[in-house]
């Protein structure tokens, strides 16, 4: 009877050993083909025993009815070890190899009796627990690891013992600062626990989870459509909500269909270009194309494509941005710009026309007015010379008036035309030899100067200035003429022309000893037709200074005056000096 019982124990013991081996070996990856052979043998044996429900280690739980684990890993095992098993072949052949086998395994394996005393500890468990396995045997879990009380693992052990239901748990074990997976197999005679340190795996899983979460967030929240397709068959694997919102194709419409077949491309050439570029360079950046929506509408879009491995398989991630509104805005902006350009061109044309009309007017006035003027003046003078004797004093006086008036009219027309011509043609600024210019003007005025007994002093070394000789001629002619015209009675006019230099500019002054300008009129003198003296006293036209000011302004310079009534006036003209 005892023999039979022993045999029964031994065979159950052996089979369970086989079972354990089966479990361990399937998780026993580094041992290669040998393990596989062993595994298949053991599994088939185990399968025979358990009625072929064991295919994979994951099914271990299912194939572990309480009965199968009954009473095996409690005292009999420790008893076996302690007692040196009897000569019965089953236990001697398996006892040491099993222990050795278990020692070689990567997972920690411990066994407890129902009071949670350690009945078996493999080498790996010893490593993970930081204890010598032999020291732990017989010790109690609660006394050895009081800090474990209340932990998920401890609770699980207790629950397993209570319910006799196997379980797998994963948790962070604070005392060791590591994550463990425990596969707990209870029976009435105790508990078997396979545990492994899954910290690294956990970290990896966590990192992967976070990465996936990041991707998921981007995927779901992107303002652009994102489509994931598989390279091997071109099928659409995933689309984000935005894709559906923008294109009108629901997720069901797209997933599982070839991306090309979705008819999103208004021009097939575009798709060909994109796939071509993908083949060449492996990615596409900001390719503009026309996207066709489900409702047939065509909108401008921009696509970027990149390769990506998902589950080891090449995929493509397509990001499509709707740029239709932007393009419309760009077109509108361009249209507005074009329109503005056209308006500017038209306005310029109008201005040029007005300018041409003005020039034509100036030209025509120049001629049409002068001819009758010549006649008036001419015949009046002839009368005055040749027929003076025929006229009485009054007649002669009237004639003199006509001559004088026509003379004024001529000067008026000349000045008016000169002023009107200012700024009608482009002024080209160039170096002007001012010294020569002023000498020339004085030479021309010589008859007049002599008549007035006027004298003009020109300072030496007047430097060349940047300007326009025609305009400058007008400026200095008027200033010098004014200088000699507005003289004090009985005082011979004296005009002095000098200059000073400052910071790249030269200021020329024309100083006279004439009547001077009253302070209250200073701001008015540069205006057109502004005259401070009566026509009889001084033959100005009132336009001379207006010409001066306008000309200097056109040259980019400055003109101003200082004056003292009864002493004279000084006009200053500041222009740029010729560099170097």
């Amino acid at each position, binding site marked *: 009877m005892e023999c039979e019982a022993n045999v029964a124990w031994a065979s159950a013991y052996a089979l369970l050993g086989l079972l354990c081996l089966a479990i361990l070996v399937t998780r026993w990856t580094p041992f290669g083909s040998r393990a596989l052979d062993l595994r298949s043998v053991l599994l088939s044996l185990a399968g025979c025993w358990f009625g072929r429900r064991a295919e994979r280690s994951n099914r271990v739980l299912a194939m572990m009815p309480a009965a199968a684990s009954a009473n095996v890993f409690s005292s009999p095992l420790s008893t076996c070890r302690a007692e040196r098993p009897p000569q019965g072949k089953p236990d001697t052949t398996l006892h040491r190899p099993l222990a050795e086998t278990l020692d070689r395994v990567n997972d920690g394996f411990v066994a407890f009796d129902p009071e949670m005393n350690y009945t078996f500890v493999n080498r790996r468990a010893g490593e993970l627990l930081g204890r010598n396995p032999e020291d732990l045997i017989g010790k109690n879990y609660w006394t050895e690891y009081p800090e474990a009380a209340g932990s998920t693992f401890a609770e699980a052990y207790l629950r397993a013992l209570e319910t006799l239901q196997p379980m797998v748990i994963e948790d962070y074990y604070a005392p060791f600062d590591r994550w463990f997976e425990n596969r707990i197999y209870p029976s009435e005679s105790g508990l078997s626990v396979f545990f492994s340190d899954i910290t690294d795996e956990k970290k990896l899983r966590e990192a992967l989870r976070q990465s996936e979460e990041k991707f998921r967030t981007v995927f779901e929240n992107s303002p652009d459509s994102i489509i994931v397709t598989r390279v091997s068959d071109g099928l659409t694997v995933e689309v984000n909500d935005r894709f559906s919102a923008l294109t009108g194709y629901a997720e069901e419409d797209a997933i599982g269909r070839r991306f090309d077949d979705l008819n999103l491309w208004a021009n097939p050439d575009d798709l060909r270009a994109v796939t071509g570029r993908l083949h060449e360079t492996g990615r596409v950046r900001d390719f503009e194309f026309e996207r066709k929506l489900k409702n047939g509408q065509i909108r401008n879009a921009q696509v970027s494509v990149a390769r990506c491995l998902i589950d080891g398989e090449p995929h493509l991630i397509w990001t499509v941005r709707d740029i239709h509104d932007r393009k419309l805005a760009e077109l509108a902006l361009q249209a507005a710009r074009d329109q503005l350009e056209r308006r500017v061109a038209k306005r310029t044309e109008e201005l040029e026309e007005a300018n041409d009309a003005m020039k034509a007017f100036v030209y025509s006035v120049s001629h049409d007015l002068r001819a009758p003027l010549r006649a008036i003046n001419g015949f009046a003078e*002839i009368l005055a010379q040749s027929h003076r004797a025929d006229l009485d004093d009054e007649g002669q006086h009237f004639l003199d008036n006509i001559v004088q008036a026509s003379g004024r009219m001529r000067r008026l027309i000349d000045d008016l035309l000169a002023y009107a011509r200012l700024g009608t043609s482009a002024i080209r600024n160039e170096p002007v030899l001012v010294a020569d210019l002023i000498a020339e003007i004085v030479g021309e005025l010589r008859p007049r100067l002599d008549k007035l007994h006027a004298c003009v002093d020109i300072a030496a070394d007047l430097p060349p200035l940047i300007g326009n000789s025609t305009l400058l001629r007008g400026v200095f002619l008027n200033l010098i003429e004014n200088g000699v015209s507005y003289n004090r009675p009985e005082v011979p006019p004296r005009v002095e022309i000098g200059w000073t230099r400052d910071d790249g500019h030269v200021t020329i002054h024309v100083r006279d000893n004439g009547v001077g300008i009253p302070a209250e009129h200073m701001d008015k003198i540069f205006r057109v037709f502004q005259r401070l003296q009566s026509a009889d006293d001084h033959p100005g036209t009132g336009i001379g200074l207006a010409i001066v000011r306008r000309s200097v302004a056109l040259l980019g310079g400055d003109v101003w005056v200082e004056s003292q009534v009864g002493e004279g006036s000084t006009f200053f003209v500041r222009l740029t000096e010729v560099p170097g």
Partner: protein
Amino acid sequence: MNPIARILMVEDNPMDVELALHAFREIRLRHEIQVVTTGIEALDALFGHGEFADRVRYPLPDLVLLDLNLPGVDGFDVLRRVKSTPVLKRLPIVILTSSREDGDRALSYDMGANSYLVKPITFGDFVDVVHRIERYWLSLNVGPPEVAG
């Protein structure tokens, strides 16, 4: 003593013509003056056409005073025609105009005008100009050899 010269004056404005003739009288011009009032007449006179075909009666002038502002065929047309005709082009042509415009001056010289004078408005100045024309062009200046008509 210089021989009597012939001046052809081309001027459309009758008052200007009158003033000019008066001015010439003032300076006691010895030379002959012929006045035509249109460009066509000027061309006829110079090319010996129409009423001017009789070269004995209307020989070529020694000096032309040419206004630019003529109706129809204007001074430029006359100038261009004359200065592009092989023999006539030697004829001294003095532009006498009221225009001081750069454009008119440039064109005149480009077309070969021998001189460019601006008519002064004041009669006294005009007499002075006329006097100088006579002194320079008909006394000082040595004209081209016989210009065959």
